[in-house]
């Protein structure tokens, strides 16, 4: 702003906040929006965490632990773990069947396939972040 355009009176008038009779309503609406936003974020994170957890457990179960066959002391313990792993695997498979994802066999995917899927997901997330950032700036 150049010096000749500076007008303290105008500045003073602009600095005064007008009285808003519905200020309380405005704050209440904003509080509602903030709460809704945090609830959506919480749900999204929970969902992502659950999906990630299911996939991780399933992947773990797909690995042949070999505990019961090894030289590990305590064959009973090995058998126990093996049976728990089988039970969990069956439970997860039943869950996936119910969700209509019976054919989801992540374990059968190659390492490279999983790598590219993860890389693709990361690229999408990064692109979304860049777009959001550019909108904010």
């Amino acid at each position, binding site marked *: *702003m*150049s010096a000749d*355009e500076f*007008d303290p*009176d*105008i*500045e*003073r*008038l*602009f600095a*005064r*906040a*007008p*009285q*808003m009779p519905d*200020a309380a309503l*405005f*704050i209440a*609406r*904003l*509080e509602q*929006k*903030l709460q809704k*936003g945090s609830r959506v974020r919480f749900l999204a994170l929970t969902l992502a965490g659950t999906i990630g957890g299911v996939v991780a457990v399933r992947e773990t179960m797909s690995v042949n632990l070999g505990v019961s066959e090894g030289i590990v002391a305590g064959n009973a313990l090995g058998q126990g773990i093996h049976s728990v792993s089988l039970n969990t695997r069956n439970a997860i498979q039943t869950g996936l069947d119910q969700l209509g994802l019976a054919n989801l066999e992540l374990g059968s995917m190659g390492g490279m396939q999983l790598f590219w899927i993860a890389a693709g997901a990361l690229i999408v997330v990064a692109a979304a972040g860049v777009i959001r950032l550019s*909108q*904010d700036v």
Partner: protein
Amino acid sequence: MTQSLVDRHDVELAALAAAGGRQEFGELVRRHGSAVRGLLRRMGAQASLADDIAQDAFIQAFERCAEFRGEGTFAAWVKRIAARLYIKRVAKEARYVAEVENEDAAPATDHAGLVDLDEALKALSELERLCVSLCHGAGMAHPEIATALNLPLGTVKSHVKRGLDKLRARLQPQAGQPLGSTQHVG
């Protein structure tokens, strides 16, 4: 003893809000909500649109509270966020083309003869109003406004100058009253 919210400084409240403090942020909204809403209306937004954008601006401010370092005032920071959101909205709708001027408007005083900035702003064209409000209300520099509105710098300067000339003419003090010395009726 815990300090009450009302006694806390904006910077302190913003720091607590950045850590997720909803109550502290609520206090900031209580303090500056009307100023942000008022600025958006002065920029030319209809009341409901102004309130929507003000809400979005405060939500953004809450999410980015950690970025506020207290270099300027909190109100100025949120006003700039709100101003940018409004510009974006207006640009999307390609709205600021109508150069409706109301040269014959009566001087901007209310029935009690008090100076009314909001009334006076109605005499400005849409762009003049926007440029003057961005400059004097949101504290943006001319080059910044030019970039935000995608206008040549000279055009912004002339809009601000013409807008201020009109405002001064409209806000002629009644019977020697200095501007801004009376109670503002918003």
